[in-house]
Protein backbone atom coordinates (compact mmCIF):
# COMPACT_ATOMS: atom_id res chain seq x y z
CA UNK A 1 0.00 0.00 0.00
CA UNK A 2 1.22 3.45 -0.84
CA UNK A 3 0.43 6.96 0.29
CA UNK A 4 0.83 8.93 3.49
CA UNK A 5 0.27 6.92 6.63
CA UNK A 6 -2.24 8.64 8.89
CA UNK A 7 -3.17 8.06 12.51
CA UNK A 8 -6.16 9.27 14.50
CA UNK A 9 -6.01 9.93 18.25
CA UNK A 10 -9.49 9.76 19.81
CA UNK A 11 -11.92 7.58 17.87
CA UNK A 12 -15.21 9.33 18.65
CA UNK A 13 -17.59 10.90 16.16
CA UNK A 14 -14.99 13.18 14.54
CA UNK A 15 -12.19 10.66 14.89
CA UNK A 16 -14.29 8.20 12.90
CA UNK A 17 -14.95 10.81 10.22
CA UNK A 18 -11.26 11.73 9.93
CA UNK A 19 -10.30 8.05 9.88
CA UNK A 20 -12.70 7.46 7.00
CA UNK A 21 -11.15 10.32 5.04
CA UNK A 22 -7.61 9.22 5.92
CA UNK A 23 -8.47 5.79 4.54
CA UNK A 24 -10.54 6.87 1.56
CA UNK A 25 -8.69 9.78 -0.02
CA UNK A 26 -6.09 9.23 -2.72
CA UNK A 27 -2.50 9.31 -1.45
CA UNK A 28 -3.41 8.45 2.14
CA UNK A 29 -4.29 5.47 4.29
CA UNK A 30 -5.18 4.92 7.92
CA UNK A 31 -2.27 3.20 9.64
CA UNK A 32 -3.05 3.57 13.33
CA UNK A 33 -5.65 4.58 15.88
CA UNK A 34 -5.03 5.68 19.46
CA UNK A 35 -8.04 5.15 21.69
CA UNK A 36 -8.47 4.36 25.37
CA UNK A 37 -11.93 2.74 25.16
CA UNK A 38 -11.68 -1.05 25.02
CA UNK A 39 -14.95 -1.35 23.07
CA UNK A 40 -13.76 0.97 20.33
CA UNK A 41 -10.35 -0.71 20.25
CA UNK A 42 -12.13 -4.00 19.62
CA UNK A 43 -14.28 -2.54 16.85
CA UNK A 44 -11.26 -1.08 15.06
CA UNK A 45 -9.27 -4.33 15.38
CA UNK A 46 -12.22 -6.30 14.06
CA UNK A 47 -12.98 -4.16 11.00
CA UNK A 48 -9.63 -2.65 10.15
CA UNK A 49 -7.14 -5.49 10.54
CA UNK A 50 -4.44 -3.44 8.78
CA UNK A 51 -4.72 -0.66 11.32
CA UNK A 52 -2.62 -0.70 14.49
CA UNK A 53 -4.43 0.13 17.68
CA UNK A 54 -2.67 1.82 20.60
CA UNK A 55 -3.87 3.04 23.98
CA UNK A 56 -1.43 5.94 24.32
CA UNK A 57 0.09 8.44 21.93
CA UNK A 58 3.62 7.54 23.16
CA UNK A 59 3.17 4.03 21.73
CA UNK A 60 2.13 5.52 18.39
CA UNK A 61 5.23 7.72 18.26
CA UNK A 62 7.50 4.83 19.24
CA UNK A 63 6.05 2.64 16.49
CA UNK A 64 7.06 5.24 13.87
CA UNK A 65 4.14 4.32 11.64
CA UNK A 66 2.58 7.67 10.91
CA UNK A 67 3.38 10.48 8.49
CA UNK A 68 0.66 12.62 10.04
CA UNK A 69 -1.66 12.48 13.03
CA UNK A 70 -5.15 13.84 13.66
CA UNK A 71 -5.92 14.74 17.27
CA UNK A 72 -9.65 14.41 17.94
CA UNK A 73 -9.71 13.99 21.72
CA UNK A 74 -11.54 16.25 24.22
CA UNK A 75 -10.11 19.80 24.15
CA UNK A 76 -8.22 19.54 27.44
CA UNK A 77 -5.77 16.95 26.05
CA UNK A 78 -5.09 18.56 22.63
CA UNK A 79 -1.95 20.45 23.68
CA UNK A 80 -0.13 17.70 25.55
CA UNK A 81 -0.75 15.19 22.74
CA UNK A 82 0.13 17.60 19.92
CA UNK A 83 3.26 18.76 21.72
CA UNK A 84 4.60 15.19 21.83
CA UNK A 85 3.86 14.73 18.13
CA UNK A 86 5.57 17.98 17.16
CA UNK A 87 8.62 17.02 19.24
CA UNK A 88 8.70 13.77 17.26
CA UNK A 89 8.51 15.81 14.00
CA UNK A 90 5.08 14.46 13.03
CA UNK A 91 2.66 16.88 11.28
CA UNK A 92 -0.59 17.36 13.21
CA UNK A 93 -4.18 18.30 12.51
CA UNK A 94 -5.73 19.28 15.85
CA UNK A 95 -9.50 19.45 16.20
CA UNK A 96 -10.89 22.81 17.27
CA UNK A 97 -10.72 24.56 19.65
CA UNK A 98 -6.94 24.44 20.01
CA UNK A 99 -6.83 24.42 23.80
CA UNK A 100 -8.65 25.27 27.03
CA UNK A 101 -7.17 28.78 26.86
CA UNK A 102 -4.24 30.59 25.25
CA UNK A 103 -1.89 30.09 28.19
CA UNK A 104 -2.44 26.35 28.10
CA UNK A 105 -1.35 26.27 24.42
CA UNK A 106 2.04 27.84 25.13
CA UNK A 107 4.06 24.58 25.33
CA UNK A 108 2.79 23.62 21.86
CA UNK A 109 3.65 27.03 20.44
CA UNK A 110 7.13 26.70 21.97
CA UNK A 111 7.56 23.19 20.55
CA UNK A 112 6.66 24.45 17.06
CA UNK A 113 9.14 27.31 17.45
CA UNK A 114 11.85 24.76 18.22
CA UNK A 115 10.82 22.18 15.67
CA UNK A 116 8.33 23.37 13.04
CA UNK A 117 6.14 20.81 11.30
CA UNK A 118 3.03 21.35 9.15
CA UNK A 119 0.21 22.01 11.61
CA UNK A 120 -3.49 22.69 11.29
CA UNK A 121 -6.40 23.46 13.60
CA UNK A 122 -9.64 21.92 12.36
CA UNK A 123 -11.80 24.98 11.81
CA UNK A 124 -13.54 23.20 8.94
CA UNK A 125 -16.11 26.01 8.67
CA UNK A 126 -13.59 27.83 6.46
CA UNK A 127 -14.15 25.09 3.87
CA UNK A 128 -17.95 25.44 3.73
CA UNK A 129 -18.55 26.70 0.18
CA UNK A 130 -20.47 29.84 1.14
CA UNK A 131 -17.91 31.00 3.74
CA UNK A 132 -15.07 30.15 1.37
CA UNK A 133 -16.67 32.40 -1.27
CA UNK A 134 -17.30 35.21 1.23
CA UNK A 135 -13.69 35.15 2.41
CA UNK A 136 -12.44 35.27 -1.20
CA UNK A 137 -14.57 38.38 -1.81
CA UNK A 138 -13.47 40.03 1.43
CA UNK A 139 -9.80 39.26 0.81
CA UNK A 140 -10.20 41.11 -2.49
CA UNK A 141 -11.47 44.08 -0.44
CA UNK A 142 -14.66 44.36 -2.49
CA UNK A 143 -16.42 46.12 0.41
CA UNK A 144 -13.75 48.80 0.72
CA UNK A 145 -12.94 49.70 4.30
CA UNK A 146 -14.92 47.51 6.70
CA UNK A 147 -16.94 49.55 9.17
CA UNK A 148 -19.21 47.13 11.00
CA UNK A 149 -19.61 43.36 11.47
CA UNK A 150 -22.56 41.47 12.98
CA UNK A 151 -22.32 37.75 13.64
CA UNK A 152 -24.34 35.02 15.30
CA UNK A 153 -24.32 31.28 15.97
CA UNK A 154 -27.41 29.48 17.22
CA UNK A 155 -28.21 25.84 17.78
CA UNK A 156 -30.87 23.98 19.76
CA UNK A 157 -28.53 21.59 21.52
CA UNK A 158 -29.21 22.13 25.18
CA UNK A 159 -32.58 22.86 26.74
CA UNK A 160 -31.75 21.14 30.02
CA UNK A 161 -28.38 20.66 31.77
CA UNK A 162 -26.08 18.44 29.69
CA UNK A 163 -23.72 15.71 30.80
CA UNK A 164 -20.30 14.73 29.56
CA UNK A 165 -16.98 16.45 29.00
CA UNK A 166 -18.31 19.36 26.98
CA UNK A 167 -20.19 20.73 29.97
CA UNK A 168 -17.24 20.47 32.35
CA UNK A 169 -15.00 23.55 31.97
CA UNK A 170 -11.97 21.58 33.19
CA UNK A 171 -11.99 19.46 30.01
CA UNK A 172 -13.82 21.76 27.57
CA UNK A 173 -12.57 25.22 28.59
CA UNK A 174 -16.11 26.61 28.80
CA UNK A 175 -19.51 26.59 27.13
CA UNK A 176 -20.92 27.79 23.83
CA UNK A 177 -18.29 30.54 23.43
CA UNK A 178 -15.34 28.16 23.18
CA UNK A 179 -17.28 25.24 21.61
CA UNK A 180 -19.35 26.13 18.53
CA UNK A 181 -18.75 29.87 18.70
CA UNK A 182 -14.99 29.46 18.34
CA UNK A 183 -15.86 28.76 14.67
CA UNK A 184 -17.36 32.25 14.40
CA UNK A 185 -14.35 33.93 16.01
CA UNK A 186 -12.01 31.99 13.73
CA UNK A 187 -14.03 33.14 10.70
CA UNK A 188 -14.10 36.78 11.84
CA UNK A 189 -10.31 36.83 12.32
CA UNK A 190 -9.81 35.13 8.96
CA UNK A 191 -12.17 37.47 7.11
CA UNK A 192 -11.65 40.80 8.89
CA UNK A 193 -8.25 40.61 10.59
CA UNK A 194 -7.15 40.92 14.21
CA UNK A 195 -9.48 41.78 17.07
CA UNK A 196 -7.81 44.07 19.61
CA UNK A 197 -10.44 44.66 22.28
CA UNK A 198 -13.69 43.14 23.53
CA UNK A 199 -16.54 43.73 25.94
CA UNK A 200 -18.26 40.47 26.83
CA UNK A 201 -21.23 39.10 28.68
CA UNK A 202 -22.02 35.44 29.27
CA UNK A 203 -25.10 33.87 30.82
CA UNK A 204 -26.27 30.48 31.99
CA UNK A 205 -29.70 29.59 30.69
CA UNK A 206 -29.71 25.92 31.67
CA UNK A 207 -26.14 24.84 32.54
CA UNK A 208 -24.57 25.05 35.97
CA UNK A 209 -20.86 25.23 35.14
CA UNK A 210 -20.61 26.73 31.64
CA UNK A 211 -22.26 29.56 29.70
CA UNK A 212 -25.15 28.84 27.32
CA UNK A 213 -25.27 32.32 25.80
CA UNK A 214 -22.61 34.88 24.98
CA UNK A 215 -22.75 38.39 23.63
CA UNK A 216 -19.57 40.30 22.87
CA UNK A 217 -18.72 43.67 21.34
CA UNK A 218 -15.58 43.52 19.19
CA UNK A 219 -13.00 46.09 18.12
CA UNK A 220 -10.92 45.16 15.08
CA UNK A 221 -7.39 46.48 14.48
CA UNK A 222 -8.69 47.80 11.14
CA UNK A 223 -10.94 50.20 13.01
CA UNK A 224 -14.11 48.17 12.30
CA UNK A 225 -16.41 47.33 15.19
CA UNK A 226 -18.94 44.54 15.58
CA UNK A 227 -20.57 41.95 17.76
CA UNK A 228 -21.12 38.24 18.26
CA UNK A 229 -24.30 36.77 19.69
CA UNK A 230 -24.33 33.02 20.28
CA UNK A 231 -26.36 30.39 22.09
CA UNK A 232 -26.57 26.61 22.09
CA UNK A 233 -29.95 26.81 23.81
CA UNK A 234 -31.66 28.58 20.89
CA UNK A 235 -34.91 26.96 19.83
CA UNK A 236 -35.71 26.19 16.18
CA UNK A 237 -32.07 25.76 15.08
CA UNK A 238 -31.77 22.09 14.18
CA UNK A 239 -28.06 22.36 13.34
CA UNK A 240 -25.44 25.00 14.27
CA UNK A 241 -26.35 28.05 12.19
CA UNK A 242 -23.79 30.80 11.64
CA UNK A 243 -24.58 34.17 10.02
CA UNK A 244 -22.16 37.02 9.37
CA UNK A 245 -23.03 40.48 8.03
CA UNK A 246 -20.40 43.05 7.10
CA UNK A 247 -20.77 46.62 6.02
CA UNK A 248 -17.96 48.51 4.30
CA UNK A 249 -17.51 51.82 2.50
CA UNK A 250 -18.47 50.13 -0.81
CA UNK A 251 -21.36 47.88 0.23
CA UNK A 252 -22.54 44.97 2.35
CA UNK A 253 -22.01 41.21 2.51
CA UNK A 254 -24.19 38.58 4.18
CA UNK A 255 -23.08 35.00 4.50
CA UNK A 256 -24.52 31.91 6.16
CA UNK A 257 -24.54 28.19 5.43
CA UNK A 258 -27.08 28.68 2.64
CA UNK A 259 -25.89 31.63 0.55
CA UNK A 260 -23.71 34.69 0.06
CA UNK A 261 -25.45 38.01 -0.69
CA UNK A 262 -23.34 40.91 -1.82
CA UNK A 263 -24.32 44.50 -2.45
CA UNK A 264 -21.78 46.87 -3.99
CA UNK A 265 -22.01 50.59 -4.73
CA UNK A 266 -19.27 50.32 -7.34
CA UNK A 267 -18.13 47.30 -9.37
CA UNK A 268 -14.83 45.76 -8.33
CA UNK A 269 -13.11 43.86 -11.14
CA UNK A 270 -15.57 41.28 -12.44
CA UNK A 271 -17.90 41.70 -9.47
CA UNK A 272 -20.65 44.06 -10.55
CA UNK A 273 -22.42 46.74 -8.56
CA UNK A 274 -25.85 46.14 -7.03
CA UNK A 275 -27.00 42.83 -5.55
CA UNK A 276 -25.34 39.49 -6.35
CA UNK A 277 -26.39 36.25 -4.69
CA UNK A 278 -24.58 32.94 -4.73
CA UNK A 279 -26.53 29.96 -3.44
CA UNK A 280 -25.09 26.65 -2.33
CA UNK A 281 -25.62 24.87 -5.65
CA UNK A 282 -23.72 27.74 -7.39
CA UNK A 283 -20.73 27.25 -5.13
CA UNK A 284 -20.65 23.47 -4.69
CA UNK A 285 -17.16 21.98 -5.03
CA UNK A 286 -17.20 18.21 -5.59
CA UNK A 287 -14.86 16.01 -3.58
CA UNK A 288 -13.42 12.49 -4.04
CA UNK A 289 -15.26 11.30 -0.92
CA UNK A 290 -17.99 12.96 1.16
CA UNK A 291 -18.51 11.37 4.58
CA UNK A 292 -19.84 14.08 6.85
CA UNK A 293 -19.88 17.12 4.58
CA UNK A 294 -17.51 18.28 1.84
CA UNK A 295 -15.87 20.79 4.19
CA UNK A 296 -14.12 17.98 6.07
CA UNK A 297 -12.81 16.50 2.84
CA UNK A 298 -11.58 19.82 1.46
CA UNK A 299 -9.85 20.52 4.78
CA UNK A 300 -8.19 17.11 4.73
CA UNK A 301 -7.01 17.57 1.13
CA UNK A 302 -5.33 20.86 2.10
CA UNK A 303 -3.75 19.23 5.13
CA UNK A 304 -2.41 16.26 3.16
CA UNK A 305 -0.95 18.62 0.59
CA UNK A 306 0.82 20.60 3.33
CA UNK A 307 2.17 17.36 4.82
CA UNK A 308 3.53 16.33 1.42
CA UNK A 309 5.07 19.72 0.64
CA UNK A 310 5.98 20.60 4.23
CA UNK A 311 4.10 23.85 3.75
CA UNK A 312 2.16 26.05 6.15
CA UNK A 313 -1.63 26.27 6.34
CA UNK A 314 -4.00 29.22 6.86
CA UNK A 315 -5.74 27.64 9.84
CA UNK A 316 -2.79 26.63 12.00
CA UNK A 317 -1.70 26.72 15.63
CA UNK A 318 -0.81 30.42 15.30
CA UNK A 319 -4.28 31.35 14.02
CA UNK A 320 -5.90 28.95 16.51
CA UNK A 321 -4.02 30.75 19.28
CA UNK A 322 -5.41 34.11 18.14
CA UNK A 323 -8.92 32.65 18.41
CA UNK A 324 -8.11 31.45 21.95
CA UNK A 325 -6.87 34.92 22.91
CA UNK A 326 -10.16 36.49 21.80
CA UNK A 327 -12.13 33.80 23.68
CA UNK A 328 -10.01 34.39 26.81
CA UNK A 329 -10.61 38.15 26.56
CA UNK A 330 -14.38 37.70 26.26
CA UNK A 331 -14.40 35.39 29.32
CA UNK A 332 -12.24 37.87 31.25
CA UNK A 333 -14.47 40.80 30.31
CA UNK A 334 -17.56 38.82 31.37
CA UNK A 335 -15.89 38.04 34.73
CA UNK A 336 -15.24 41.76 35.18
CA UNK A 337 -18.89 42.55 34.57
CA UNK A 338 -18.50 43.53 30.91
CA UNK A 339 -15.65 46.04 31.06
CA UNK A 340 -13.37 46.48 28.04
CA UNK A 341 -10.45 44.01 27.88
CA UNK A 342 -7.48 44.14 25.51
CA UNK A 343 -6.97 40.98 23.47
CA UNK A 344 -3.57 39.39 23.66
CA UNK A 345 -2.33 41.00 26.84
CA UNK A 346 -3.36 38.05 28.97
CA UNK A 347 -0.48 35.83 27.88
CA UNK A 348 3.14 36.73 28.36
Amino acid at each position, binding site marked *: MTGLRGAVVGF*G*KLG*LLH*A*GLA*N*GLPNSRLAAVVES*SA*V*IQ*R*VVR*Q*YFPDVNVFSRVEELIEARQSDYVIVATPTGSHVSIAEKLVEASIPVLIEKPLSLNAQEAQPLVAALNRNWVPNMVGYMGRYIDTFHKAAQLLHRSVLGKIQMVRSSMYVE*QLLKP*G*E*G*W*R*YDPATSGGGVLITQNSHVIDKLLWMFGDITGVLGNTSQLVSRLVEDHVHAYLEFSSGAVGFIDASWSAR*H*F*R*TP*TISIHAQGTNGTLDV*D*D*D*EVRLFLDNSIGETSSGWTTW*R*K*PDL*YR*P*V*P*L*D*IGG*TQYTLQMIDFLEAVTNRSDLDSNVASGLKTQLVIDAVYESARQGGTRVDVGTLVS
Partner: protein
Amino acid sequence: MTEVVLPRIVLGHNAFFGVDHLSSQRGAERAAYFSDVANVMTVIASAVDSGAGGLMLSTHPRAVSICEALRVDTFLGSNLEVFPLLPYAQKYVTRANELGLVRVVTQTLAAASTRDKVGLGLDFARTIYRRDPLDMVRALMRLELRMFRKLNVSTVFLHDAIAALNLPEVFSLYESTLRRRFGTAAGIATKNLSLLVRRFQEWGMELPVVLTHVNKVGFHVNPSQEEYEKALAHPELAVMAMGTLASGYLNPEEAYSYVNAFSSVKSIVVGASSTAHMRATFGSITASKT
Protein backbone atom coordinates in the same frame (compact mmCIF):
# COMPACT_ATOMS: atom_id res chain seq x y z
CA MET B 1 -30.03 -7.36 -9.39
CA THR B 2 -32.26 -6.38 -6.50
CA GLU B 3 -35.81 -7.37 -7.33
CA VAL B 4 -37.68 -4.53 -5.76
CA VAL B 5 -40.39 -2.61 -7.56
CA LEU B 6 -40.23 0.99 -6.47
CA PRO B 7 -43.04 3.52 -6.76
CA ARG B 8 -42.17 6.18 -9.34
CA ILE B 9 -42.90 9.08 -6.97
CA VAL B 10 -41.93 9.05 -3.30
CA LEU B 11 -42.79 11.93 -0.98
CA GLY B 12 -39.73 13.28 0.88
CA HIS B 13 -39.75 13.91 4.62
CA ASN B 14 -37.37 16.86 4.90
CA ALA B 15 -40.02 19.56 5.20
CA PHE B 16 -41.67 17.65 8.07
CA PHE B 17 -38.47 17.67 10.12
CA GLY B 18 -37.19 21.15 9.29
CA VAL B 19 -34.42 20.01 6.95
CA ASP B 20 -33.97 22.53 4.14
CA HIS B 21 -30.72 22.46 2.22
CA LEU B 22 -31.28 25.87 0.66
CA SER B 23 -32.62 27.83 3.62
CA SER B 24 -32.28 27.01 7.32
CA GLN B 25 -34.88 29.64 8.20
CA ARG B 26 -37.49 28.18 5.85
CA GLY B 27 -36.64 24.78 7.35
CA ALA B 28 -37.29 25.99 10.89
CA GLU B 29 -40.62 27.57 9.89
CA ARG B 30 -41.80 24.37 8.24
CA ALA B 31 -40.72 22.29 11.24
CA ALA B 32 -42.97 24.42 13.43
CA TYR B 33 -45.95 23.98 11.08
CA PHE B 34 -45.43 20.24 10.77
CA SER B 35 -45.03 19.72 14.51
CA ASP B 36 -48.80 19.12 14.28
CA VAL B 37 -49.07 15.61 12.83
CA ALA B 38 -52.49 16.49 11.34
CA ASN B 39 -50.72 18.93 8.98
CA VAL B 40 -48.31 16.19 7.96
CA MET B 41 -51.17 13.78 7.27
CA THR B 42 -52.93 16.36 5.09
CA VAL B 43 -49.84 16.69 2.91
CA ILE B 44 -49.37 12.90 2.75
CA ALA B 45 -53.00 12.33 1.76
CA SER B 46 -52.77 14.96 -0.92
CA ALA B 47 -49.48 13.47 -2.19
CA VAL B 48 -51.10 10.04 -2.59
CA ASP B 49 -54.04 11.70 -4.33
CA SER B 50 -51.60 13.42 -6.72
CA GLY B 51 -49.81 10.19 -7.60
CA ALA B 52 -47.17 9.46 -4.93
CA GLY B 53 -46.80 5.79 -4.04
CA GLY B 54 -44.21 6.09 -1.29
CA LEU B 55 -43.02 8.08 1.69
CA MET B 56 -39.39 8.48 2.76
CA LEU B 57 -39.18 8.59 6.54
CA SER B 58 -36.03 8.89 8.62
CA THR B 59 -36.15 7.71 12.22
CA HIS B 60 -36.54 11.27 13.48
CA PRO B 61 -38.29 11.36 16.89
CA ARG B 62 -41.30 12.95 15.17
CA ALA B 63 -41.64 10.06 12.72
CA VAL B 64 -43.13 7.96 15.54
CA SER B 65 -46.40 9.91 15.53
CA ILE B 66 -46.52 9.96 11.71
CA CYS B 67 -46.24 6.15 11.71
CA GLU B 68 -48.97 5.91 14.33
CA ALA B 69 -51.27 8.08 12.22
CA LEU B 70 -50.53 5.94 9.14
CA ARG B 71 -51.46 2.76 11.02
CA VAL B 72 -54.79 4.30 11.98
CA ASP B 73 -55.53 5.52 8.43
CA THR B 74 -56.08 2.21 6.68
CA PHE B 75 -56.44 3.80 3.22
CA LEU B 76 -53.07 5.57 3.41
CA GLY B 77 -51.51 2.68 5.31
CA SER B 78 -52.26 0.30 2.44
CA ASN B 79 -51.73 2.69 -0.50
CA LEU B 80 -48.45 4.09 0.61
CA GLU B 81 -45.14 2.30 0.87
CA VAL B 82 -42.90 3.64 3.64
CA PHE B 83 -39.13 3.79 3.08
CA PRO B 84 -37.31 4.07 6.43
CA LEU B 85 -33.93 5.81 6.43
CA LEU B 86 -31.61 4.80 9.27
CA PRO B 87 -30.48 6.38 11.43
CA TYR B 88 -31.62 9.99 11.82
CA ALA B 89 -27.99 11.04 12.15
CA GLN B 90 -28.50 14.42 13.82
CA LYS B 91 -30.15 12.69 16.79
CA TYR B 92 -26.97 10.73 17.46
CA VAL B 93 -24.55 13.51 16.49
CA THR B 94 -26.04 15.94 19.02
CA ARG B 95 -26.03 13.35 21.77
CA ALA B 96 -22.56 12.07 20.87
CA ASN B 97 -21.32 15.62 21.44
CA GLU B 98 -22.27 15.13 25.06
CA LEU B 99 -21.68 11.53 25.83
CA GLY B 100 -19.32 10.05 23.28
CA LEU B 101 -20.36 7.42 20.77
CA VAL B 102 -20.25 4.32 22.95
CA ARG B 103 -22.38 5.81 25.72
CA VAL B 104 -24.93 7.08 23.21
CA VAL B 105 -25.41 3.55 21.92
CA THR B 106 -25.55 1.89 25.33
CA GLN B 107 -27.88 4.57 26.74
CA THR B 108 -30.17 4.36 23.72
CA LEU B 109 -30.51 0.63 24.25
CA ALA B 110 -30.87 0.96 28.01
CA ALA B 111 -33.54 3.66 27.62
CA ALA B 112 -35.77 1.53 25.38
CA SER B 113 -39.11 1.05 27.10
CA THR B 114 -39.75 -2.21 28.88
CA ARG B 115 -42.52 -2.94 26.40
CA ASP B 116 -40.07 -2.51 23.52
CA LYS B 117 -37.56 -4.80 25.19
CA VAL B 118 -40.12 -7.50 25.83
CA GLY B 119 -41.74 -6.95 22.44
CA LEU B 120 -38.44 -7.30 20.65
CA GLY B 121 -37.47 -10.28 22.75
CA LEU B 122 -34.02 -8.87 23.19
CA ASP B 123 -31.71 -9.36 26.07
CA PHE B 124 -30.62 -5.75 26.13
CA ALA B 125 -28.76 -6.10 29.40
CA ARG B 126 -26.57 -8.80 27.88
CA THR B 127 -25.97 -6.75 24.74
CA ILE B 128 -24.86 -3.79 26.80
CA TYR B 129 -22.76 -5.90 29.14
CA ARG B 130 -20.96 -7.76 26.35
CA ARG B 131 -20.60 -4.61 24.31
CA ASP B 132 -20.25 -6.66 21.18
CA PRO B 133 -20.44 -4.17 18.31
CA LEU B 134 -22.40 -6.46 16.00
CA ASP B 135 -24.95 -7.22 18.71
CA MET B 136 -25.26 -3.51 19.29
CA VAL B 137 -25.83 -2.75 15.62
CA ARG B 138 -28.50 -5.46 15.44
CA ALA B 139 -30.19 -4.25 18.61
CA LEU B 140 -30.12 -0.62 17.47
CA MET B 141 -31.59 -1.53 14.09
CA ARG B 142 -34.43 -3.40 15.72
CA LEU B 143 -35.09 -0.53 18.08
CA GLU B 144 -35.00 2.07 15.30
CA LEU B 145 -37.29 0.01 13.04
CA ARG B 146 -39.81 -0.67 15.78
CA MET B 147 -41.80 2.47 14.89
CA PHE B 148 -42.56 1.11 11.38
CA ARG B 149 -44.30 -2.09 12.54
CA LYS B 150 -47.39 -3.11 10.56
CA LEU B 151 -46.66 -0.53 7.85
CA ASN B 152 -46.05 -1.32 4.20
CA VAL B 153 -42.23 -1.50 4.08
CA SER B 154 -40.22 -3.28 1.35
CA THR B 155 -36.85 -1.49 1.48
CA VAL B 156 -34.93 0.13 4.33
CA PHE B 157 -32.21 2.66 3.51
CA LEU B 158 -29.01 3.06 5.49
CA HIS B 159 -26.83 6.15 5.65
CA ASP B 160 -23.70 5.92 3.62
CA ALA B 161 -20.81 5.67 6.10
CA ILE B 162 -20.58 1.88 5.52
CA ALA B 163 -19.42 2.16 1.91
CA ALA B 164 -17.42 5.30 2.60
CA LEU B 165 -15.55 3.52 5.38
CA ASN B 166 -15.15 0.37 3.25
CA LEU B 167 -16.91 -2.01 5.64
CA PRO B 168 -18.45 -4.90 3.64
CA GLU B 169 -19.03 -7.00 6.79
CA VAL B 170 -21.25 -4.34 8.31
CA PHE B 171 -23.30 -4.10 5.14
CA SER B 172 -23.70 -7.89 5.08
CA LEU B 173 -24.88 -7.86 8.67
CA TYR B 174 -27.32 -5.06 7.90
CA GLU B 175 -28.62 -6.78 4.77
CA SER B 176 -29.06 -10.18 6.42
CA THR B 177 -30.72 -8.71 9.52
CA LEU B 178 -33.24 -6.86 7.35
CA ARG B 179 -33.92 -9.89 5.20
CA ARG B 180 -34.27 -12.40 8.04
CA ARG B 181 -35.87 -10.33 10.76
CA PHE B 182 -37.98 -7.89 8.78
CA GLY B 183 -38.41 -9.49 5.36
CA THR B 184 -37.27 -6.31 3.63
CA ALA B 185 -34.52 -5.42 1.18
CA ALA B 186 -31.50 -3.32 2.15
CA GLY B 187 -30.95 0.01 0.44
CA ILE B 188 -28.15 2.48 0.87
CA ALA B 189 -28.04 6.27 0.75
CA THR B 190 -24.89 7.83 -0.65
CA LYS B 191 -23.19 11.02 -1.82
CA ASN B 192 -20.42 8.91 -3.35
CA LEU B 193 -22.25 6.89 -6.00
CA SER B 194 -19.32 5.94 -8.20
CA LEU B 195 -17.24 4.91 -5.18
CA LEU B 196 -20.15 2.83 -3.89
CA VAL B 197 -20.61 1.02 -7.23
CA ARG B 198 -16.87 0.34 -7.36
CA ARG B 199 -16.76 -0.91 -3.76
CA PHE B 200 -19.67 -3.34 -4.23
CA GLN B 201 -17.95 -4.70 -7.32
CA GLU B 202 -14.71 -5.16 -5.35
CA TRP B 203 -16.61 -6.88 -2.54
CA GLY B 204 -18.33 -9.15 -5.07
CA MET B 205 -21.68 -8.18 -3.61
CA GLU B 206 -24.95 -7.49 -5.34
CA LEU B 207 -25.73 -3.77 -5.64
CA PRO B 208 -28.44 -2.63 -3.24
CA VAL B 209 -31.09 -0.07 -4.19
CA VAL B 210 -29.30 3.27 -3.99
CA LEU B 211 -30.72 6.55 -2.75
CA THR B 212 -28.61 9.35 -4.18
CA HIS B 213 -28.61 12.92 -5.51
CA VAL B 214 -29.35 13.23 -9.22
CA ASN B 215 -29.43 16.75 -10.65
CA LYS B 216 -27.99 18.46 -13.69
CA VAL B 217 -26.09 21.11 -11.70
CA GLY B 218 -24.10 18.48 -9.80
CA PHE B 219 -25.20 19.65 -6.33
CA HIS B 220 -24.01 17.05 -3.75
CA VAL B 221 -22.62 15.00 -6.61
CA ASN B 222 -19.10 13.52 -6.30
CA PRO B 223 -16.36 13.21 -7.44
CA SER B 224 -17.41 14.82 -10.75
CA GLN B 225 -20.48 15.02 -12.96
CA GLU B 226 -18.81 12.81 -15.56
CA GLU B 227 -17.86 10.02 -13.12
CA TYR B 228 -21.25 9.98 -11.54
CA GLU B 229 -23.14 9.93 -14.85
CA LYS B 230 -20.97 6.96 -15.80
CA ALA B 231 -21.95 5.24 -12.52
CA LEU B 232 -25.63 6.03 -13.15
CA ALA B 233 -25.38 4.14 -16.44
CA HIS B 234 -24.43 0.89 -14.64
CA PRO B 235 -26.82 -1.75 -16.01
CA GLU B 236 -27.52 -3.38 -12.64
CA LEU B 237 -28.18 -0.18 -10.75
CA ALA B 238 -31.60 0.73 -9.34
CA VAL B 239 -31.66 4.30 -8.08
CA MET B 240 -34.12 6.26 -6.02
CA ALA B 241 -33.18 9.82 -6.99
CA MET B 242 -33.18 12.61 -4.41
CA GLY B 243 -32.09 16.25 -4.56
CA THR B 244 -33.44 16.36 -8.12
CA LEU B 245 -34.46 20.02 -7.84
CA ALA B 246 -31.13 20.84 -6.14
CA SER B 247 -33.08 22.09 -3.10
CA GLY B 248 -35.40 24.28 -5.18
CA TYR B 249 -32.61 25.67 -7.34
CA LEU B 250 -33.90 24.05 -10.57
CA ASN B 251 -37.38 24.28 -12.03
CA PRO B 252 -39.21 20.92 -12.33
CA GLU B 253 -39.25 20.77 -16.14
CA GLU B 254 -35.49 21.10 -16.60
CA ALA B 255 -34.81 18.96 -13.53
CA TYR B 256 -36.91 15.97 -14.61
CA SER B 257 -35.99 15.94 -18.27
CA TYR B 258 -32.42 15.38 -17.01
CA VAL B 259 -33.31 12.81 -14.33
CA ASN B 260 -35.69 10.80 -16.53
CA ALA B 261 -32.98 10.30 -19.13
CA PHE B 262 -31.29 7.75 -16.82
CA SER B 263 -32.91 4.33 -17.02
CA SER B 264 -31.31 3.40 -13.68
CA VAL B 265 -33.53 5.98 -11.96
CA LYS B 266 -36.54 3.89 -10.97
CA SER B 267 -37.98 6.26 -8.45
CA ILE B 268 -37.84 9.95 -7.52
CA VAL B 269 -38.10 11.47 -4.05
CA VAL B 270 -39.90 14.78 -4.13
CA GLY B 271 -40.13 17.13 -1.20
CA ALA B 272 -43.37 19.04 -1.14
CA SER B 273 -45.31 20.98 1.43
CA SER B 274 -48.46 22.08 -0.47
CA THR B 275 -50.97 20.42 -2.79
CA ALA B 276 -50.43 22.94 -5.60
CA HIS B 277 -46.66 22.48 -5.44
CA MET B 278 -47.06 18.70 -5.52
CA ARG B 279 -49.43 18.62 -8.49
CA ALA B 280 -47.04 20.80 -10.49
CA THR B 281 -43.93 18.82 -9.55
CA PHE B 282 -45.44 15.36 -9.90
CA GLY B 283 -46.94 16.45 -13.23
CA SER B 284 -43.50 17.39 -14.59
CA ILE B 285 -42.10 14.00 -13.58
CA THR B 286 -44.80 12.17 -15.51
CA ALA B 287 -44.75 14.59 -18.46
CA SER B 288 -41.00 14.43 -19.08
CA LYS B 289 -40.99 10.62 -18.86
CA THR B 290 -42.88 10.25 -22.15
